[in-house]
């Protein structure tokens, strides 16, 4: 991987991402006002993950980083998922 990153993300791109984030925020507020039952949590989490993905990819410039950081991010997220998920082997079946 290259030491110095040379890509510069333009103001236009950043603003577009920001608009998308605001729209997604509106979307979560919208769908969680609907009567979706248990799917509300799921829907909200999906939208939140999308937003998080945008922030990471553009604002945090992961898009232009090499594979290494992406792999590391994956490791961290998977670890957290395991910690939460495996706890539910207890919580769900107690």
């Amino acid at each position, binding site marked *: 991987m290259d030491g110095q990153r040379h890509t510069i993300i333009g103001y236009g791109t950043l603003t577009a991402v920001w608009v998308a984030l605001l729209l997604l925020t509106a979307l979560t507020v919208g769908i969680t006002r609907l009567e979706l039952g248990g799917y509300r949590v799921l829907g909200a989490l999906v939208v939140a993950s999308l937003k998080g993905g945008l922030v990471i990819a553009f604002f945090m410039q992961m898009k232009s980083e090499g594979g290494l950081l992406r792999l590391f991010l994956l490791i961290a997220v998977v670890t957290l998922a395991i*910690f939460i998920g*495996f*706890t539910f*082997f*207890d*919580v*769900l079946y*107690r």
Partner: protein
Amino acid sequence: MDKAATAQNSFWNDTGRSGLTAWIFSTDHKRIGLLYLYSTTGFFLAGVILGLILRIELMAPGRTIMDPRTYNALFTLHGVTMIFLFILPGFPGAFGNLVMPIQIGASDVAFPRLNLLSWWLYMAGALIALSSLFTGGGPPDTGWTFYVPFSTRTGTNVTLAVFGVFVIGFSAILTGMNFITTIHRLRAKGMTWGRLPLFTWSLYATAWVQILATPILAITLLLVMAERLLGTGLFDPGRGGDPLMYQHLFWIYSHPAVYIMILPAMGAISDIIPVFSRKPVFGYKMIAFSSVAIAAAGSLVWGHHMFTSGMSDRAVLVFSLLTFIVAIPSAIKVFNWVSTLYKGSISLEAPMLFALSFILLFSIGGLAGLILGAAATDVHVHDTQFVVGHFHYVMFGGTGFAFFAAMHYWLPKFFGRRYREKPAIIAWGLMFTGFNILYFSMKILGMRGMPRRYYDYLPEFADLNLAATVGSWILALGVAMMFVNLVSGLLRGEPFTGNPWGGATLEWSVATPPPTENFAEEPVVTHGPYDFTAAGRR
């Protein structure tokens, strides 16, 4: 230090500052490594003396020298000191810092100032934790596990102790990120991943565990503090909280933490055995890979500390199964170490003796881990002296003996002087004997049903407890002898120069003691870490 060291431009005398400040404000990884070495062994000696006192109380049933409150405070202090002040920071902090940057051909770690901050945080945390003894409601009496709801109710000064541990956690995180970055970015030319010494490999795996597991401990301890100070009630059954959630969070950190303790130890052993066999380590790739495998799989098994806690039976099934999976990479390592000896040229000098006894003691401890990992048998021995035996075997017999091996192996390199061989071997003999008498008795006691954290016990357990106490004295004698020999040897012993053991890793290619900048010019690595012929040993 004096003559041998001043002969060259070693890191001992090359500094702008003088006196103590030349040490505690130095960002040189070798000086920081020595700071860690002094502070962690200092706490080790303190903790070990507490252990000795515990044994004296347990020498006979009933009250021997103290009351139950003192005993409870002492084993808590013993556990906290050993785990958080000695064994967790010990290997990465002391030998990781001393050796790893040189092993990969770097002039320092990636973030030297952060490295110094780690040590400062560690000391600050240690002092905070220790100040809990003299303030507030007195020394905490919860055991090192701080289980709720007891820890949120007891009047003793748990809050401060927990806060100290929290601060130490920060230090571990900083060390971890420093090491990962260093190993990724600062390897010399030609130091490919396939040529990384196994000690460095193990530190790399350890650093990941430090980074990913420690934050969970941090938040858990914060919640305990909040519970005590604000009454959040998140773990309080009276307020809808679930004490088992504390246990989950605690062990999500603390099980992986036992691999923070053992992985660097295994790494050091993997470096030492080939050198004293003059033979490349057997199965380099598998050993390196198994370090990573242990780190990864070790994050999935925390539930094995909770088999009797009332956790769901399905969770018992999953965690028991996964626990056995972690044992496999450990087994691979053991088999590879033993095969390294085959057709070698074996010299039983002190580092090698400690390394070989590591294999035996760690195997005894680890095999006992299998009894703990199986659900049915764990129910019987959980929370008994068997567990105490298990973890002393793996922590003291494993990491501790590896630490001693590393001391005998690497410290002469950094001091330029060496200990005397014969006392070292006698000390080893005493320690090995005393150790087994002490902790094997505990295992049998556990199988016979004596619970742990027991101030007093029934007469039927008296004989073995006495044996254990006697064992602890033999062990103490050995440890004292070893330290006296080491300290006097490193300060005033015979000069140690060059590469008498014939190591092939980079730290043996630099001057003894190493100069401040490690390498006069950036090294180019052309052979593997255990390629003794290519290293030009002969």
